[in-house]
């Protein structure tokens, strides 16, 4: 087995006195697309925010690229190749599309490469190219999701974490976003995908974890999970 890019051991996170994440273990290999599914309030978003450094764990360890992230601030993790597309997208509404993408490259200083990556993003998302001078707040939900993803990619991440990319989007747009996720994964980037839409997520992922009230209750190959009775019953409405 290859050395994992990310390895989480016994991670615990608490808000005030309430434990939202109760000692989970997970790992992601380089180039792997892993999904974390579960119902609302299971602790998925909390897990991602903690991995990104926005929340501090109350226990456990996060190893990324062989390094303990305990004392690494959120903004430093970006330069190490960790990127999070947050729930609700978090685009800068009063910045233009182009400025949002430039913010994505904030931690980089290779000017020429940044310009090349910008061009690549506009190729990947032609809709954004048309709207590059528009304020991001004026875009539709789907377009804002594209901005959020393109912006995260501008940091040249090695591990891209996506929190509910399908939330609030029309079915056609959801399909498009998932196609893009597949394309990005094909480039060899590691992806941790958090989704409520379990079926879609398990269809694109290699492996999956099922999270329930702060703990991981099931894990395995995406195909197996998709076929398992427990998942079928709880999340796929079968």
């Amino acid at each position: 087995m290859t050395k994992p890019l990310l390895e989480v051991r016994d991670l615990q996170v608490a808000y005030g006195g309430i434990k939202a994440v109760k000692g989970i273990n997970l790992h992601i290999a380089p180039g792997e697309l892993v999904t974390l599914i579960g119902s609302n309030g299971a602790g998925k978003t909390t897990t991602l925010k903690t991995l990104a450094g926005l929340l501090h764990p109350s226990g456990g360890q996060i190893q990324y690229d062989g390094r303990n992230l305990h004392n690494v601030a959120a903004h430093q993790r970006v330069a190490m190749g960790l990127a999070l597309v947050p729930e609700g997208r978090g685009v800068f509404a009063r910045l233009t599309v182009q400025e949002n993408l430039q913010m994505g490259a904030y931690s980089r200083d290779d000017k020429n490469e940044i310009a090349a990556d910008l061009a690549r993003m506009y190729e990947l998302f032609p809709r954004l190219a048309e709207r590059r001078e528009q304020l991001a707040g004026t875009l539709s939900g789907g377009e804002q999701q594209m901005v959020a993803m393109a912006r995260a990619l501008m940091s040249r991440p090695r591990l891209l974490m996506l929190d509910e990319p399908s939330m609030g989007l029309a079915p056609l747009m959801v399909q498009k976003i998932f196609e893009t996720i597949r394309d990005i994964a094909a480039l060899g980037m590691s992806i941790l995908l958090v989704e409520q839409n379990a079926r879609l997520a398990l269809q694109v992922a290699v492996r999956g974890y099922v999270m329930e009230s702060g703990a991981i209750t099931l894990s395995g190959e995406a195909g197996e999970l998709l076929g398992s009775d427990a998942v079928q019953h709880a999340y796929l409405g079968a």
Partner: protein
Amino acid sequence: MEILLQQIINGLVQGSVYALVALGYTMVYGILGLINFAHGEVVMIGAMLALSSLTTLLGMGIPPVLALLLSIVLAMLGCMALGYSIERIAYRPLRHAPRLAPLITAIGVSIVLQNLAMMIWGREYHSFPQLIASHPHTFGGAIINDIQAIIFILALAIMAGLMVVVHRTRLGRAMRAVAENQHAAQLMGVDINRVISITFMLGSALAAIAGLMVSANYGLAHYYMGFLLGLKAFTAAVLGGIGNLRGAMLGGLLLGLIESLGAGYIGDFTGGFLGSNYQDVFAFFVLIAVLVFRPSGLLGERLAERA
């Protein structure tokens, strides 16, 4: 007619100084949602530092223009260090406290700085040395002297420069991003503490220049000058829409004009009952009127959401 023109000139000159100070209030508010009531004292410290270094440098026989430039730089550096320290010591520990706590702290910082200045520079008025023979120029019957012209042009140039920084540079982009969404900015790799410190330092540098301008214009500086000036600049920021940079500039210039025209004509309106010594009243009429009729200010939109 000459009087009207003269009042407009005086108003614009004074207003451009208000605008520089108002920018400091509005930048900090935009990024932290905090009204830094100590900002007026930073202006005062800037004036005092500039004056002290100017007097010292002139005493050492350094030519006036060079001494002036050096003292501007020294005052700016001093105020930047002061602004940085205020944020670091007084506001950062309260970043997640209820809104009232930093507000009260700001008033505390303001009192500390005033008393500190009184201990260092005393209670007396310090007069600003006559450096350049300030020639009066007349046009249309009104007079504008060199110092006024320099203040106005320099203030406009600095404001234009600030707009370029905020809208055209990587740092400015980061400032706007932090102002809008601190978490998302962190996810872009922005060290928000650093951006907040820089914002305080930028505002304080503007305050230092404004302090020097005020004392050059009136020929005086003293430890209490920051209080009223700060309140008026805050009024200007609210008038323009606090948190909005263009609003601060517009508000500053408008407030200067309102004050100047008000003071110029109050005697006529009241049949000589009230004189131009009531000048300060206008700023606060404006503050009350804005808060009652248009609390989001002229160019502001989002006050309700923030406050």
